[in-house]
């Protein structure tokens, strides 16, 4: 087929146009997950029931820090319906798991199914009771008798860092599980000579992810084959599979970890948990299926928590408002254990890593210490470290603007890395690829009509009302490739993702991935990417995810990676299958490959009515003898791995408008605008939903959500009555503007975006509240800012009119 006939040329041009027309990626395709979830036919772990299934209840520590002197399980073992009662003694053959890291000055604590010898937080599992029903297991818990010898509680991280403090892990010889420093230029000298300095001791209190589905694990065991399947409400079934393989010395071929429908994660389901180890152990020991379903109290007491940082920070600027130096000292209260696989310091290290944010600041000094306390471990929570870094930097920007008498937007635009200044390396060493910093900020202000808002504010102030406007800008790394560790010094590669696409003999398309959806609609968005590059129809593509057996190496979904990495792998694999479709069709339809177009699940010769559906094509390839010569016959499959090597970024500007009731101190959000850049959108409807949900969590973090431990180490917010998350009446309308600046460093130009909403919102709300009460001379340095905290701040400023509240004067 070498003749360049005019007809054929037209045909290939048509084919080309058809192929390049955006059809599926970029469309707000309705989710394929919805019908089952809307009709109560979802399959969450707790919905699964198997014959002979047993139930676990844990007796958890009621001490913050104590030695376990004796455990008497006799009465519990004799109780009605009880099948077994296990303590750490029974689990000796299970290996402890360690979150290792290449970081210097880091101690990895052992992670075990049940506490060994000592408890380190209230809620730590000590004894597992297994019975015919959850009710009976809980009955027997009361009969377990544990003798403790209390040790000093270790609650205040700054006290815990002192050599005199009681130690949680004696082998570590310190409670400082890790310390690090990031340095560029000479921040100290630059600060000393600066015209303007603003500083504060910032505090972002502890919070908890609170997915609506509590963690649930069901282990099924086949004794004949020594095969274990763990159904888990996890974001990272692949990581859990690998960890259990180490814990039990079992090959991956006998271990399968499945995350079916997962009811939200937000980071709280992204780590290995003691209860997962226990359930797997118990099923194997008893040779029966064993299930544990957390209740909400257990979730609030023992799921990994977030934030809990103290940041002493200072920003220095010249007289024109150019930032010249930033110095920060971060203390992370990381709780009792170094969580697997992320380590204890994923949160605080990210805080110092991201503090310089979207700004050009030549001199930076960031120090961080992760300090163990007798509280549950902290772990990754939506935004990881960046909600705090953004809170601190964006508050400092507003404080500087106020000091300089400049508009906060003007100050930011002046200091931001400009569109022609990328790539840019910030003081902590992170390199931003092309980021839409100024574009996002301008777009947010445009959408909200910033000037008009300021005019309204002037009127409101004149009338004595407390009306505030706050913005926050940030950037995050997303879709991280194999050259960067997602967690500090973590040796596990999370920078690749595999897609396995197959057209079977019925013409059906199955696409399998190692990622896991916990609400973000990956079954739809990945089907869109496959459909686009394969020439299939979204509704015909079955996406398999959340199953460690689907691909050889899977980790899961975290760090805003799935669209970029799995989307990239999907693209590569779909392209290869499409090439195979074209080769087969070229033979079957006797047409040149340039004349073929694959679209809507069919392959056709352009300009003719000669067409094969995938079904017809697949039958011809696999089943109909002699249609394709043996040496031309190819299986319609492809497995491809994608690695963006460094990855990309994502940015946004958030703008919040608040009004505060001067009598009740109630903070009412009037409006919220997000201008965000997540590169090329796969499904705008889903992106908007992610932004809405992220912002709602950020609003919760800014105004309501706080896990409180009292001096005895008891959690006093262990129910949803005391741990308050936003309801429909607290979340305002959220306007979302998309700046589709395609990433130049990833396939398809995608950027990750699942976490961003939670990164910008707390800072924007804090700035808006601070702006509202600025006439009273008050700064907001602590989140969440409850009406009570605000009241106390205002009262104390009335009482000490001359005090500085952390300002340098």
């Amino acid at each position, binding site marked *: 087929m070498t003749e360049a006939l005019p007809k054929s040329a037209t045909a290939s041009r048509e084919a080309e146009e058809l192929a390049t027309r955006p059809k599926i990626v970029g469309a707000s395709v309705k989710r394929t997950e919805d019908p089952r*979830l809307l009709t109560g036919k979802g399959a969450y772990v707790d919905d699964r029931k198997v014959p002979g299934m047993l139930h676990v209840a844990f007796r958890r520590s009621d001490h913050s820090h104590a030695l376990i002197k004796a455990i008497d399980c006799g009465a519990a073992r004799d109780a009605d319906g009880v099948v077994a009662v296990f303590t750490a003694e029974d689990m000796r053959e299970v290996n402890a798991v360690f979150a290792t890291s290449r970081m210097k000055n880091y101690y990895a604590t052992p992670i075990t199914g049940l506490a060994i010898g000592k408890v380190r937080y209230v809620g730590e599992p000590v004894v597992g009771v297994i019975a015919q029903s959850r009710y009976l297991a809980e009955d027997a818990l009361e009969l377990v008798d544990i003798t403790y010898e209390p040790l000093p509680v270790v609650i205040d991280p700054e006290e815990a860092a002192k050599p005199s403090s009681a130690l949680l892990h004696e082998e570590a010889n310190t409670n400082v599980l890790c310390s690090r420093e990031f340095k560029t230029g000479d921040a100290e000298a630059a600060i000393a000579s600066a015209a303007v300095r603003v500083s504060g001791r910032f505090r972002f209190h502890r919070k908890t992810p609170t997915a609506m*589905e509590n963690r649930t694990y069901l282990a099924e065991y086949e004794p004949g084959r020594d095969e274990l399947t763990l159904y888990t409400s996890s974001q990272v079934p692949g990581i859990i599979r690998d960890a259990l393989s180490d814990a039990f010395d079992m090959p991956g071929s006998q271990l399968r970890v499945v995350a079916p429908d997962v009811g*939200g994660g937000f980071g709280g389901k992204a780590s290995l948990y003691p209860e997962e180890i226990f359930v797997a152990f118990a099923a194997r020991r008893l040779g029966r299926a064993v299930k544990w379903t957390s209740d909400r109290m257990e979730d609030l007491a023992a799921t990994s928590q977030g934030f809990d940082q103290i940041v002493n920070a200072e920003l220095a600027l010249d007289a024109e408002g150019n930032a010249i130096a930033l110095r920060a000292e971060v203390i992370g209260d990381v709780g009792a254990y170094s969580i697997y696989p992320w380590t204890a310091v994923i949160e605080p290290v990210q805080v110092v890593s991201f503090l310089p944010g979207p700004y050009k600041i030549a001199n930076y000094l960031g120090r961080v210490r992760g300090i163990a306390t007798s509280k549950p471990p902290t772990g990754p929570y939506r935004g990881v470290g960046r909600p705090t870094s953004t809170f601190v930097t964006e508050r400092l920007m507003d404080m500087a603007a106020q000091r300089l008498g400049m508009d906060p937007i003007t100050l930011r635009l002046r200091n931001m890395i400009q569109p022609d200044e990328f790539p840019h390396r910030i003081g902590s060493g992170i390199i931003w690829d092309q980021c839409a910093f100024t574009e996002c900020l301008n777009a947010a202000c445009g959408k909200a009509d910033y000037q008009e808002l300021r005019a309204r504010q002037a009127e409101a102030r004149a009338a004595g009302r407390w009306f505030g406007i706050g913005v926050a800008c940030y950037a995050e790394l997303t879709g991280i490739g194999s050259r960067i560790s997602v967690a500090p010094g973590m040796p596990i590669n999370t920078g690749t993702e595999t897609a396995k696409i197959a057209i079977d003999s019925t013409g059906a398309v199955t696409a399998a991935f190692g990622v896991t959806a916990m609400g973000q609609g990956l079954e739809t968005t990945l089907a869109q990417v496959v459909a686009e590059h394969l020439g299939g129809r979204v509704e015909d593509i079955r996406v398999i995810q959340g199953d460690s057996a689907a691909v050889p190496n899977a980790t899961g979904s975290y760090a805003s990676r799935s669209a970029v990495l799995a989307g990239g792998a999907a693209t590569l694999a779909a392209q290869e299958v499409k090439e195979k479709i074209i080769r087969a069709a070229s033979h079957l339809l006797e047409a040149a490959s340039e004349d073929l177009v694959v679209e809507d699940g069919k392959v056709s010769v352009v300009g003719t009515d000669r067409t094969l559906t995938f079904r017809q094509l697949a039958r011809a390839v696999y089943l109909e003898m002699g249609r394709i010569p043996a040496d031309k016959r190819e299986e319609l499959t492809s497995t491809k791995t994608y690695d963006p090597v460094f990855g990309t970024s994502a940015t946004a500007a958030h703008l919040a408008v608040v009004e505060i009731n001067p009598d009740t101190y109630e903070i009412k959000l009037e409006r919220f605008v997000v201008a965000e850049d997540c590169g090329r959108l796969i499904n705008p409807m*889903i992106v908007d939903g992610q932004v809405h*949900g992220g912002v709602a969590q950020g609003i919760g973090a800014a105004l309501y959500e706080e896990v409180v431990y009292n001096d005895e180490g008891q959690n006093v917010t262990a129910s949803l009555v005391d741990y308050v998350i936003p309801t429909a009446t607290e979340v305002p309308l959220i306007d979302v503007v998309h700046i589709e600046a395609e990433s130049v460093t990833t396939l398809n130009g995608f950027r990750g975006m699942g976490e961003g909403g939670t990164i910008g919102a707390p800072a924007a709300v804090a700035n808006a509240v601070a702006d509202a009460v600025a006439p009273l001379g008050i700064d907001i340095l602590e989140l969440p800012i409850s009406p009570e905290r605000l009241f106390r701040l205002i009262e104390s400023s009335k009482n000490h009119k001359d005090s500085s509240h952390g300002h340098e004067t």
Partner: protein
Amino acid sequence: MTEPVIVRVNVNGVEYARRVEPRLLLSDFLRNDLGLTGTHVGCEHGVCGACTVLVNGDSVRSCLLLAIQLDGAKVETVEGLGTAQALHSVQKAFHEHHALQCGFCTPGMLMTTIDLLRKSPLANDEDIREGLSGNLCRCTGYQNIVRAVRQAADQLNTLATDEAIS
């Protein structure tokens, strides 16, 4: 422990008689004894609303009731609405407006919405937000749920007006 008793209930139009322990929660009864796992449990202390079902026409939290209190009652759960192939109009509105992400709160949201729609005109979005304020959702930020309920309410109101006219 007290002896099991027999409880008879009508769930989604089907009559059931089961022998249950007096302490058995309605939520566990629906999920474990009847296999109706569409009703979810998010807190077991009456705050999250995930377990909302209708009992004799009123929305209740099934985690706060005992199965034996339901003897003779008529219960509606999410399974009694549409099917995956033929969604109920409220389910359709949720689908069209992307009012669910992980779907865990969704059955409770749907049942609360059904109750609201039956009892209130939901004239403005404040009414909808107020009406949904007992149901927590951690994924959606509520915005698209409010939109979906708005659409369902508008459809119903148009229907009512049309009927009044004809």
